[in-house]
């Protein structure tokens, strides 16, 4: 499937949760499949921390660049683009095309950098609603996401209850734990203490805080895998014949983390990373209801599919069951899958017959 990324500019200002206002913004997006005449088959796919609007397919000029959820989305895939009109979007504050810290600030004519406001999940959903309006979609057949993407799927059901028929919430949490926030803070400190960070104004200095970003990614990666998956994949295997008794790479896992850090820091923006981790930290729909998640979901109208993975310790199944309980309290139409998969948080990206089979069946039952 060859796809073409698109962009749309919104000239109307967007008021953000922080009180700041984005005077104008762009959203990068891709679409797969055809919107039907009744406009009833649209599915919005929301991405997690490091992904983008490139959900599925490849580009004509870059055939190796496969979308991040291509195993899930496409013709004949669980989310079948022969039947559904699927929209991938890049959230604002990102560095892949939508307006973010690397974009030009119209007020200064220079990149926003550190001046780009902190955005929240609620802000993303508000911006996505503009995209939906632009595409002429009044009501989504489904909004779907994993991890941070799942928070957007949840928030859609709260911000725009009447515009979502199904909310598909995978590897989610209704709020970060203190431990989750702690990992994010270590990642932010790694970036902000990098001498090349320059308070976020590194673009104009011609440098990038790659060391900090690299460490941030290494920390993140540890939380995406289960202990068992990491042991299974890397064990205590050495990269050299005998231990070096120095601080070069001894173990396979060290090599893997360095590689992941190098790769990530070569394409990701540090200011974006700071903002995304803050969006994660702040997300807590129950906060406005004295911590009562059931009260928060009282306004939801969607049907829900919630999926968790038993080896996910970042956003554990217990956190998904908190969502399930809140939805049960509100008598929502709801199914919950707890997949006994070994890979940890990353399991949401991997093909598993039980997980993909359930998604295929669920989408198959959505009437158009």
């Amino acid at each position: 499937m060859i796809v073409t990324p698109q962009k749309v500019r919104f000239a109307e200002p967007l008021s953000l949760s922080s009180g700041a206002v984005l005077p104008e913004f762009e959203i990068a997006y891709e679409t797969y499949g055809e919107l039907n005449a009744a406009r009833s088959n649209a599915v919005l796919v929301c991405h997690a921390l490091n992904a983008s609007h490139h959900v599925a397919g490849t580009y004509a000029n870059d055939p190796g660049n496969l979308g991040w959820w291509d195993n899930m989305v496409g013709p004949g895939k669980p989310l079948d683009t022969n039947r559904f009109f699927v929209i991938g979007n890049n959230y604002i504050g990102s560095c892949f095309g939508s307006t973010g810290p690397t974009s030009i600030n119209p007020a200064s004519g220079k990149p926003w950098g550190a001046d780009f406001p902190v955005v929240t999940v609620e802000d993303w959903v508000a911006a996505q609603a503009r995209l939906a309006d632009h595409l002429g979609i009044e009501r989504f057949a489904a909004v779907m996401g994993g991890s941070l993407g799942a928070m957007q799927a949840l928030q859609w059901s709260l911000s725009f209850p009447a515009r979502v028929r199904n909310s598909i919430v995978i590897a989610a949490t209704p709020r970060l734990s203190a431990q989750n926030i702690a990992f994010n803070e270590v990642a932010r400190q790694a970036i902000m203490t990098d001498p090349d960070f320059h308070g976020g104004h590194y673009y104009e200095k011609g440098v990038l805080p790659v060391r900090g970003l690299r460490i941030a990614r290494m920390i993140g990666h540890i939380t995406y895998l289960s202990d068992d998956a990491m042991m299974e994949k890397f064990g205590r295997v050495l990269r050299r014949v005998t231990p070096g008794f120095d601080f070069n790479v001894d173990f396979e896992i060290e090599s893997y983390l360095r590689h992941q850090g190098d790769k990530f820091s070569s394409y990701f923006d540090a200011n974006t990373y700071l903002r995304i981790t803050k969006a994660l930290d702040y997300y807590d729909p129950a906060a406005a209801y004295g911590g009562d998640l059931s009260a928060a979901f009282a306004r939801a109208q969607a049907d829900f599919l919630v999926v968790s993975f038993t080896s996910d310790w970042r956003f554990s199944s217990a956190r998904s069951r908190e969502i399930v309980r809140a939805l049960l309290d509100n008598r929502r139409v709801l199914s919950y899958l707890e997949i006994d998969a070994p890979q940890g948080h990353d399991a949401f990206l991997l093909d598993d017959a039980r997980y993909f089979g359930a998604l295929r069946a669920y989408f198959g039952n959505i009437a158009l």
Partner: protein
Amino acid sequence: MTERETIARWVSLGARVLDLGCGDGALLKHLWQTRQAPGYGVEIDDAKVLECIRNDVNVLQMDLEDGLSVFQDGSFECVILSETLQAIHRQEPLLREMLRVGREAIVSFPNFGYWRARIQIALGGHMPVSKELPYQWYDTPNVHHCTLVDFEALCAKLGLRVLERVVLRDGNPVAVMPNLLGSLAIYRVSA
């Protein structure tokens, strides 16, 4: 009369039901179609959970042995445990939980006091194998068999009231000596 018809008769129109060990969701689907009773199923088996999703039945993949803490007190008119009681390790807390989250419970189980079962043990000298109990002793999911007498004693111990009882054999109600002549027991109980 089948077990399903008996249960459907006991579920009032529009009642909220919870089906524990719901299998492929066929009973819930039947209750929705015949009684407009919405509800949820709880099932742990991956293949059966998938069947529920295919059947467009609300299913929650959870282990009954972990309790029913996701459900609020009194959130269902009726909590069903259909031919699952014998596969549960700890019946007492589950029965209490069922009547915490539901106003009434419907419990069905294969009657171990059925005469064919008794004969297989007494004369055959082996564990019973039948239509209701199709397993060999070494590969059965069932861990706690009971008879009508046993179940009613447990209800008495837990202070549960038996509101109705239907005992079946080959789809026919058994009125005389049910603990000997019935192969499947279905109870409607309340706290």
